[in-house]
């Protein structure tokens, strides 16, 4: 997933779980059925996991920007210092 996708996944997960918890509790309380609350919540957890855990394409809409290879060559990695008599040599 790209960064925006991860953010979306996290927000979606939290929102869905909280909504299902609230709906499950209210339904269970109104119906007077503890089992109903547990069933609705379990269904909600399964649905949320199907929606937010796998790496769906819509989580990858804004692709990460990697540097161009030619751009990278213009900024060479620093060479380690060569130990020995110091001479004035130009380093490339």
């Amino acid at each position: 997933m790209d960064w925006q996708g991860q953010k979306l996944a996290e927000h979606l997960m939290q929102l869905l779980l909280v909504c299902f918890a609230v709906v499950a509790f209210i339904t269970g309380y109104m119906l007077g059925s503890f089992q109903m609350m547990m069933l609705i919540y379990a269904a909600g957890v399964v649905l949320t996991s199907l929606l937010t855990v796998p790496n769906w394409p819509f989580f990858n809409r804004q692709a990460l920007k990697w540097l161009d290879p030619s751009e990278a060559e213009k900024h060479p990695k620093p060479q380690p210092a060569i130990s020995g008599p110091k001479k004035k040599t130009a380093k490339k």
Partner: protein
Amino acid sequence: MHSFGQRANVLLTFAITLLALMCAIASVSDNFNSLSPHAHVQVVNINWFQKKSSGDDEVSLSLNISANLESLFTWNTKQVFVFLAAEYGTPKNALNQISLWDGIIPSREHAKFWIHAYNKYRFIDQGSNLRGKEFNLTLHWHVMPKTGKMFADKIVMSGYRLPQAYR
């Protein structure tokens, strides 16, 4: 949220935390239950009343126990444990409590009941103090929840007396 395992972990942890919260609120909701239990016990017969060889008194009773404990049940109730205790004082013990009968009520439908029973557990005194003894019969109950806090209470019924002589 960078990998499958991480997302699965976050989801499960958050889901279980919310579940714990729901169960806590369900337990708190039990406090708003308005209770109106009723109970009546009648001692139908003193079957026998003897002094045992150990010197302790023992009595066997036939009881009619009727109760309506429907209002104790909430959506968060697993079962109600109910027991009947005889209470009296002696010179040796300020308070004696002896469990005579108990039962489990699994659901609201079974909470209004009438039973005719012998005392399930033996009514034996520590000593020989039961002749002519006045005692209370107290119906205790424990409302056992599906999650959370258990509530216990009782109804005290007084005015029972054992006979003056052994039979």
